[in-house]
């Protein structure tokens, strides 16, 4: 049980960080499918700069910088240049996945993966039994993640800045009448999201592991995206959704090991997906999304033709 919880926390941390990023983007009205690309970029940059400078802090700072720069490009493309949010987002993901793998070869002359000694500290380590296991072997980022979620909640739900951001996403006209430039607010949201994705990627490469591997995010950006919707665009909701997916992962791992008489594996693997559908359906029954929210959402997703 302790192990399941520990695994849950570790698997969830990068998801929660990236889902929080997604919440910022969503609140500002951007259906952000580039999370995965930013995440892998963060993972790579941390390792690359960490290796080059020998400092994990510098690595993370650089990752945040690079991801913010990429986010700014994304904003420029979907905002001033008017590109389709979804396609450009998927493009950003490919750019991240391809670009990091390419850079690994071009800069370090490596293929596939790269190790580093420069890793995040682990406040508690070496506990092997008892409840202590739950908190053992987590990088400092896992510990900080709840604080980040809390901060995100305050910023989004309890500050004027958050009000402006939500208004810009939900009803740009309202934002404009309040003297807010929705486009700038979106840029701000994307920059914050970029920074958070960088942290999510860094947790993966130098928090949980000490290497960068091509494609190592392995769809986590998309799962985080799902968590955002699952969590109804709320920072706390998305964090719990991220935890849920982390938990599903942990259960998946444990069930592989503990269920001996096997149902076909594929059916076990389907469980989290089926559960998600079920949960989303149930959640929808409890609280029908408002027409307006829906309309805003539809507008987001609705391309011109």
């Amino acid at each position: 049980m302790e192990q399941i919880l520990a695994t849950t926390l570790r698997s969830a941390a990068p998801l929660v960080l990236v889902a929080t990023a997604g919440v910022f983007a969503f609140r500002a009205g951007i259906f952000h499918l580039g999370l995965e690309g930013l995440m892998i970029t963060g993972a790579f940059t941390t390792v690359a700069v960490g290796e080059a400078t020998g400092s994990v802090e510098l690595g993370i700072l650089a990752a945040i910088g690079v991801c913010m720069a990429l986010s700014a490009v994304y904003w420029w493309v979907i905002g001033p240049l008017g590109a389709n949010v979804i396609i450009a987002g998927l493009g950003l993901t490919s750019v991240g996945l391809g670009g990091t793998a390419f850079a690994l070869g071009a800069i370090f002359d490596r293929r596939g993966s790269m190790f580093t000694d420069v890793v995040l500290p682990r406040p508690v380590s070496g506990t092997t039994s008892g409840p202590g296991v739950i908190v053992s072997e987590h990088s400092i980022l896992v510990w900080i993640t709840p604080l980040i979620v809390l901060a995100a909640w305050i910023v989004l739900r309890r500050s004027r800045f958050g009000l402006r951001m939500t208004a810009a996403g939900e009803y740009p006209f309202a934002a404009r009448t309040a003297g807010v430039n929705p486009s700038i607010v979106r840029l701000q949201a994307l920059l914050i999201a970029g920074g958070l994705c960088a942290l999510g990627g860094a947790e993966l490469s130098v928090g949980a592991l000490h290497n960068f591997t091509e494609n190592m995010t392995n769809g986590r950006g998309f799962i985080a995206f799902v968590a955002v919707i699952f969590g109804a665009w709320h920072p706390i909701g998305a964090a719990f959704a991220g935890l849920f997916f982390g938990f599903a992962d942990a259960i998946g791992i444990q069930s592989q090991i503990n269920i001996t008489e096997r149902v076909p594996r594929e059916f076990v693997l389907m469980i989290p997906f089926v559960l998600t559908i079920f949960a989303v359906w149930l959640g929808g029954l409890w609280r029908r999304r408002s027409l307006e929210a829906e309309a805003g959402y539809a507008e987001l997703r609705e391309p011109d033709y």
Partner: protein
Amino acid sequence: GGDDDGGTAAPEPEPAETPATTAPEPEGAETPTTAAPEPEPEPEPAETPTAAAPEPEPAGELTVALVANQRAGDLGPIDDLVRGLEMVEQDYGADITFIEATDPSTFETTLRNLANQGTDIVAVTFPPMQDAVVAVAPDFPETRWIHIFGFEGGVDNLVSIGFDYYKGTYLAGILAGALNTTGKVGFVGGVSIPPLNADYNAFVAAAQTKDPNITGEAAFADSFEDPAKGRELGAALYDGGVDIIMTDAAATDLGVIQAAEEKGGYVIGGSVNYFDSSAVIGGVLLYWAELLHAQVGHALSDDYTPGYVGAGVAEGGVDLVVNPEFLANGPAEMVEIINATLAEIDDARSQIKDGSLEVPFDPEL
């Protein structure tokens, strides 16, 4: 030290093709391979069943391509094959092309493209590409095809080299069974596909020959590129009472090895590249680079003979190799057991060779 106590049963070595072997210098750092994959330290390359000396053609003309169905960067077979391809470039002056074709529906197009471009020799990897190469090869008789880890013998311009990796994991299972103290051995695979399932079953079956009460635990990462998941799987297995894990999941292995280091467990891997880690007892190895190099030579030679050749445990193409570092620096009691078990492994190997030991191939979990 490249010497290997569980050495192969002396297939004909082909010194001509052996790459300059550099003994890996044990580095002080305990981190696993931070350096680029070192050339295979194994002095005996894979046996090429058709032991023909290569006769390099005039350079410049020759084009050789390798199409892999998995991504490079696994510190394993694909990386080794790429190294073999680079050896081909050096030794034959060939113009080389490496292609990753991870989507099965692109196999045929890619092969046809290559042949259309007049590529002289095309090597493809692993069983999933069999249908494609068998379909394409007859249409391009000018091209010579090599299927590494394939089983089709009936095509005029195709050499298929078959392995029985599961027999190798069987040998690993004997070692794991001998070392096991907890009654449980583990296995981490990339995706639960038939060949990996068979590897796992052979591994457990062998462990059970040492102690019938040993049980096996298999876990799959559902990705060959997810070290983070590998780490969690490994940790869960070790926490669940497993002490030795056989891992078979390409880049995902990196996470399993990390878990072993953190949890004090042990790993038998699939690549010599992992041998820097103190948690790696050994590996079930194939001599991919040498094999590719030799097969290209064969394809260029005058007595080129297409068809199927086995290159498995019986032929010495697949073998369990103990990590020399581990023998040198590992816990004394484990080293002792390993040394004591080697003879038994040798026995099993020769029984496999003469057919008296039938390792079951069971692709179901």
